[in-house]
């Protein structure tokens, strides 16, 4: 199996062209906020790739991937809060505004590392990774699978949402973290920083795609597909199914965390709403629309849906939920293999033999 197949070539090529073209076209053909918007879409795309890795290849339908995304986002947000320093409303050099407001006199221990950028980078991977590892350790060992697993992943993100809503948690409660000023000393609103973040998002997406592809094209990836299609049979063949699942689950969560971390500086806010179960379910439809188990298709699906949302909410705000709801129904009924799968079916000569059952 080649690392870079046809779909991947097309997608990475397109991604490269867009990454070059969007900054050039911004201001004349595209509106001034195009870079930020595109950067946001690329983060969604990376999240979709992360979900496709577990859903498309290991058959784990996670309804809680938004939680890993949001955790990465919060880790980044905490660092950005610390960068504000004494420029906050209360001008406290040490504490973020909301802590001053709550009359806290020192930083909680879990905020200590967020002052360092290097530590933040590590935590972006570690926090979602650890949660996924612990959660997966319990879930996969107990052989929780199918809809049960989906429901408890939903419960996980719901529980985190409720927890993050509490002011006492020390993450800004309802309002979340916002009013960021700069990153590594460069203002977040400067064009250079926006360009850097956009390119970083594109690189992260490309990297994520290649990593996911490397995993799925390896021997390990073949075992994952076997688990997806016949879990018991794979177990009887002697494979430790739970170890494979746990590995890919944790990698996927870290990838989602990176996506969240890149997302925050580009949108300027993170709040507990990111943990809402509805957000996580929406990610699933991105993957389903693009094509489950196609990686590049998942990324494409995320971008298509996000673009449609931006256009439609600006144009007909009430129609968006109808459209999204219809998308869920139509894709599951008529487009089980997604856009990429449907395109593949149109090319009988290179017809893929891979079947994707539930």
């Amino acid at each position, binding site marked *: 199996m080649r690392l870079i197949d046809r779909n991947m070539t097309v997608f990475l090529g397109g991604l490269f062209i867009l990454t070059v073209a969007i900054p050039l076209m911004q201001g004349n053909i595209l509106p001034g906020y195009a870079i930020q918007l595109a950067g946001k879409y690329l983060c969604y795309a990376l999240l979709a790739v992360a979900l496709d890795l577990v859903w498309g290849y290991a058959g784990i*339908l996670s309804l809680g991937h938004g939680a890993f995304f949001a955790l990465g986002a919060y880790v980044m947000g905490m660092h950005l809060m610390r960068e504000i320093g004494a420029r906050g409303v209360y001008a406290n050099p040490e504490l973020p505004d909301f802590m001053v407001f709550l009359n806290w006199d020192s930083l909680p221990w879990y905020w200590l590392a967020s002052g360092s950028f290097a530590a933040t980078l590590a935590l972006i991977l570690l926090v979602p990774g650890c949660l996924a590892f612990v959660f997966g350790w319990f879930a996969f060992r*107990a*052989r929780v699978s199918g809809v049960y697993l989906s429901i408890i992943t939903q*419960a996980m993100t719901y*529980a985190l949402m*409720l927890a993050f809503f509490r002011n006492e948690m020390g993450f800004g409660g309802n309002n979340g973290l916002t009013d960021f000023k700069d990153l590594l000393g460069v203002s977040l609103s400067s064009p250079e920083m926006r360009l850097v973040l956009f390119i970083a998002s594109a690189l992260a997406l490309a990297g994520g795609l290649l990593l996911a592809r490397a995993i799925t094209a390896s021997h390990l990836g073949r075992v994952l597909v076997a688990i997806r299609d016949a879990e018991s049979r794979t177990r009887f063949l002697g494979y430790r199914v739970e170890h494979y699942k746990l590995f890919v689950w944790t990698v996927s969560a870290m990838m989602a965390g990176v996506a969240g971390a890149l997302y925050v500086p580009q949108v300027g806010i993170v709040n507990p709403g990111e943990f809402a179960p509805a957000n996580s379910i929406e990610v699933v439809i991105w993957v389903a629309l693009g094509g489950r188990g196609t990686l590049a298709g998942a990324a494409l699906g995320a971008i298509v849906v996000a673009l449609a949302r931006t256009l439609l909410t600006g144009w007909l705000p009430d129609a968006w939920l109808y459209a999204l709801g219809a998308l869920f*129904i139509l894709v599951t009924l008529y487009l*089980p293999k997604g856009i990429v799968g449907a395109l593949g079916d149109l090319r009988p000569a290179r017809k893929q033999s891979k079947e994707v059952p539930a």
Partner: protein
Amino acid sequence: MRLIRLILLCLIMPAAALAQSFEEIARALPEGSYDDRADRVSALASSGDPRAEALLTALVGGDLAVLKSDGRLVIVTDGSATDALSGDPAGSVTRRDVTPVRVNNNLRGHVRAALGTLGLVAESPAARTRAAAQVEAAPDPAQLSALEAALSRETDTKARDALEIARASVLLVAPDATPDERAEALALIAERRGAAAQVRIRPLLSDPALKDAARTALADIERAEALRGWGLTLWQGLSLGSVLLLAAIGLSITFGVCGVINMAHGELVMLGAYTTFMVQEVIRTHAPGLFDWSLAIALPLAFLVTAAIGIAVERGIVRRLYGRPLETLLATWGVSLILQQAVRSIFGPNNRQVGNPSWMSGSVEVLGLSLTWNRIWIMLFALAVFGFLMLVLRRTALGLQMRAVTQNRAMAAEMGIRTGRVDALTFGLGAGIAGLAGVALSQIDNVSPNLGQGYIVDSFMVVVFGGAGSLWGTLAGAFTLGIVNKLAEPLAGAMLAKVMILIFIILFIQKRPRGLFPTRGRAVEG
């Protein structure tokens, strides 16, 4: 003629005598020793005469005086005098025209106590009860005789109860009460007042005679309070459990029989609530007299509306996705988004007003717990729905077929059961139950497009915890989660309690991946 005159005289006489004596006593107020005057104050207060309050207030405030010119008793306010007995103005006076009625601290205290007992002789029992409560709140030994007098002629049970407690409160602080009297008073207060008596009893711990009695009384009260607290928590837990049961039970049978997670279940509940709203709107404009029947009318309508939608969803979407549970989950989520937005477009995003019928408002006192009627009815309703479903499953042909399909779909089909029809009817039944739940929830929750979203995760938890497809499991799951939630809330706060329960369920699933009461069926094979 003479007889009539005699009767009339008899009727008039007591009033005249009383009026005369009130005035006589009042006029005698400035004279004699302080002890005599204290007795007169008590007599005035217990006379029941409406003038007593103004007179005694003036006395304690130092505004009561005797006019030097004609010896009339007047109340002086801002230099102008009013006759204390007749209420007529007596012109403006200076300090030289009057002799103030002198009071010392002892008498002043006595007057204050007497003022506190004025209400004890009021006309209405409610006013007497209030006055007794005032005495109880600030007991004064000087009020004892007035209380006992009031007690001896009291006929109203409630007022009598209040007076007895007031008397006991006074006895507790009275220096000349015998230890027996005080012990009796202590027991009475502890028994009747519960936690509210703690403040009154606690000072008695330093009283050597009553120390032990006070300690036992306090311990008893604490025990009773703890019990009451547990009772309240249990009730709240059962109440929450019944709500969860209503929200989850429809979900449970659809999952059990069809192996399908219906993500639109919460929205069907919401539609049931909106049906109630519509019914009430129509009743408000066309037949206001039927308002108390609104829920009875809404129940079948809500069932039909949501069941029809459920069957349509099953026929149109779910049917094509059997054997692919995860895809069904996504498609029904799409349905839920559309239903939510449709309701938002039609009814607007804000809460809609749904009223309680009269028989659902108010509360009832049971064993010292105040239980609201709407919660009681919802609990009964949840159990009734449960019983109804049990009957359907155990006693009808459809129920038999449903159980057969749950256990072995292929075999059931072999036996000639039209599994497709069973699926559709089951889905419709589950959806209809969601509508019924919506009618009930409209009584205790905000009717808004987001109503369903608030219950969906919780009801999934109930189903997962109890075991999908098992009615008993759902019952046990709903009440367990409801009670555990309410038990954990005071310890950790509402939000954290919920988080803890979710974590608990996630861990529970490790041990029992199929819930408390696992069923054998298609859902298990997946």
